[in-house]
């Protein structure tokens, strides 16, 4: 559970000490955005919109493995944070390679589902970072802050329907896992990963390396 940061005195020296003592919480941050739901809400009304959102949230079945890692949901967007220590303890999806594989399969299943108009397409951004802190400024809430979270959100700018954008940091972890199980050179999903791109993102003082998988190709 997050460390609750709360200090009445804005000039408190204790607060600085408390913040300095908070340990990093390395892990994987995932943003998922369900596409076109706002448009659908106005165009088709709550019955259609609500049904498709319900279906899509249900369909994102890998989430069933991480219910306690859903940090927040705002409308049709959600953020997950999976600390490294928790990922390796999971029974079903316990590697970066497996995690990416399940997200990839989920988006592909939605895209290729034979029944039209049941599910909405998604875009996903994934980043792994050590620069994350499990803190909250709201009593009773669980949350994560840090430059790693900010950068994960920035990757959504490169998102498109049926696309997974991932930082080079996360990709390298995926690749290491895939090598460990002998699939780095043969896995069909990994063959779809784009070349590396470098880009300046707002508020980030250095070019950021990322790749993506475009299921529309």
């Amino acid at each position, binding site marked *: 559970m997050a460390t609750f940061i709360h200090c009445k005195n804005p000039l408190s020296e204790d607060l600085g000490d408390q913040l300095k003592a908070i340990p990093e919480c390395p892990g994987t941050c995932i943003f998922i955005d369900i596409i076109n739901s706002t448009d659908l809400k106005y165009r088709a009304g709550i019955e259609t919109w609500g049904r498709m959102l319900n279906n899509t949230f249900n*369909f994102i*079945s890998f989430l069933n493995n991480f219910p306690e890692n859903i940090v927040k949901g705002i409308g049709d967007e959600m953020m997950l944070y999976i600390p490294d220590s928790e990922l390796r303890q999971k029974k079903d999806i316990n590697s970066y390679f497996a995690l990416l594989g399940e997200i990839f*399969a989920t988006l*592909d*299943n939605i895209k290729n*589902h034979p*029944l039209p108009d049941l599910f909405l397409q998604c875009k996903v951004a994934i980043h792994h970072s050590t620069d994350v802190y499990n803190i909250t400024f709201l009593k009773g809430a669980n949350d994560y802050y840090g430059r790693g979270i900010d950068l994960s959100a920035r990757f959504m700018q490169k998102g498109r329907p049926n696309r997974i954008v991932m930082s080079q940091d996360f990709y390298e972890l995926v690749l290491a896992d895939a090598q460990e199980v002998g*699939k780095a050179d043969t896995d*069909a999903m990994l063959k779809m990963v784009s070349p590396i791109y470098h880009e300046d993102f707002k508020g980030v003082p250095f070019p950021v390396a990322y790749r993506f998988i475009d299921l529309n190709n």
Partner: protein
Amino acid sequence: MHLQINEVAGNKVVAIEGRLDTTTYADLEKTLTNLFDEGCHNMILDCSAMDYVSSSGLRVFLMILKKIKSVGGSLVLCGLQPAIYNVFEISGFLSIFSIRDSLDQALNK
């Protein structure tokens, strides 16, 4: 995961045992694709000993269904355990796959 291919009453039956997930789906994909490429367009997938399916596994089912439908063949799944049945329901797969309670029922179609 363990796969067993049998010929039962003229039907190709693929029995799936264990967990169908990111580490095992490729084996099933390869097996089913090979069968299809060899001309087997009517298949029964016996899922009675399959105790877990992830999105990667569902993707294989969709893939083979698409292939078999494209040539007018038939694909029947049978013996889904309750947890698997639940996943199929959520995924809308109950409406797109032919599903039977048991292998006997699948053989009788």
